[in-house]
């Protein structure tokens, strides 16, 4: 069988197997992967927190975030697909989300700097992608689901960046910090739940 033919057969066979860690949307693995972002609050909260930090620290970095974030996520996810079992890093992820929420709540007064934001975003999106990939690894349609989630991340990031394009009026700057505080609070509660009953 030719290379593309083998790939197509493999893709089709994978797609017919059940998907764990995904809520069936009826749209197949691709759609399930897109929905995963909305149904995995830690992933979604990290994304929102990173967008908040980017827009709070000026336009130069936020313009590149829509590309960097999904690509790093995808690379991390592809690495995660090679992992045999799900990485038990949910607690670490919850702690990271909490910390990012705190940083966003403290606002632009922190002056984090573009280098810190760039490095942090790359590292965190790789890590969260790795965890997402490992949770899908070994299950049918994992690659399609991962691609679907990466596309969802790109779309949501782009939409948020468009809506929150700096500079911000005072009320919006305060609103962004408020959302940061909500993210920190959610992360803390999630940390508690995960320490009590790991998902």
């Amino acid at each position, binding site marked *: 069988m030719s290379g593309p033919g083998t790939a197509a057969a493999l893709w089709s066979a994978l797609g017919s197997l059940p998907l764990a860690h995904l*809520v069936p949307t009826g749209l197949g693995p691709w759609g399930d992967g897109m929905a995963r972002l909305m*149904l*995995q*609050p*830690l992933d979604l*909260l990290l994304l929102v927190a990173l967008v908040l930090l980017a827009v709070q620290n000026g336009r130069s970095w936020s313009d590149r975030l829509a590309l960097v974030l999904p690509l790093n996520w995808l690379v991390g996810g592809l690495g995660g697909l090679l992992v045999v079992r799900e990485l038990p890093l949910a607690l670490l992820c919850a702690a990271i989300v909490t910390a990012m*929420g*705190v940083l966003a*709540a403290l606002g632009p007064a922190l002056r984090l700097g573009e280098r810190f934001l760039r490095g942090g975003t790359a590292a965190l999106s790789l890590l969260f992608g790795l965890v997402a990939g490992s949770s899908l690894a070994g299950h049918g349609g994992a690659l399609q689901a991962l691609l679907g989630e990466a596309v969802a991340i790109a779309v949501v990031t782009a939409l948020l960046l468009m809506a929150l394009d700096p500079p911000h009026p005072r009320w919006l700057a*305060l609103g962004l*910090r*408020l959302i940061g*505080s*909500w993210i*920190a*609070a*959610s*992360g*803390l*509660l*999630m*940390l*508690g*739940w*995960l*320490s*009590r*009953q790991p*998902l």
Partner: protein
Amino acid sequence: MGQCWRLSSWAVLRRHSPLPPALVALVAAVLAPAAAWAHADLHPGGGLVAGFLHPITGLDHVVAMVAVGLWGAVLGPPALWLLPLAFPPVMALGGLLALLGVPLPGVEVGIALSGLVMGLMVLFELRPPLWLAALLVASFAVFHGHAHGAELPAGTHPLLYSLAFVIATGLLHLVGILLGEARRWPGGRALVRLAGAGVALVGLWFLERALA
């Protein structure tokens, strides 16, 4: 037949209601029977629904959260945004303590006191220093978090529940701030003080129950 009745009643409601149609629709949606949510707990959306409804269905929690916003409005900036900014993480810290099994004595009394004290602050328009106001609100937040943050209905997704719980709490603060902004209008100041009196009375009622 049912569809026809609904359409005609909607038309009558729109014709005779003094309120704008959008507001009528909003009220109708809020008052709609909860039967449609009966199976919400069987999917991840159940976590969101349960988490969102939990803070807004407990009167003690509702009045205290609204009072945070009201008192912030009375105190003015920066307390106006600082109190609602600080409350959710500290409340979540209380929830975290509960989830980790750390006991906190007098939780119900603390919650009742939060309504009573903040209601009185709004009623008498008391303006302590910012650090004292923040400390007071943060202390109350720990009690609220400890009591409510760890209550998870069976079968719900804990992470989505937590997220929705925090959002609903934050929205209650915003309701309080919006009510407090009525002070800018003639008669609004009296209205806000009246709301503070209402909060204090509810707090007093819960305190009596907690001590009984």
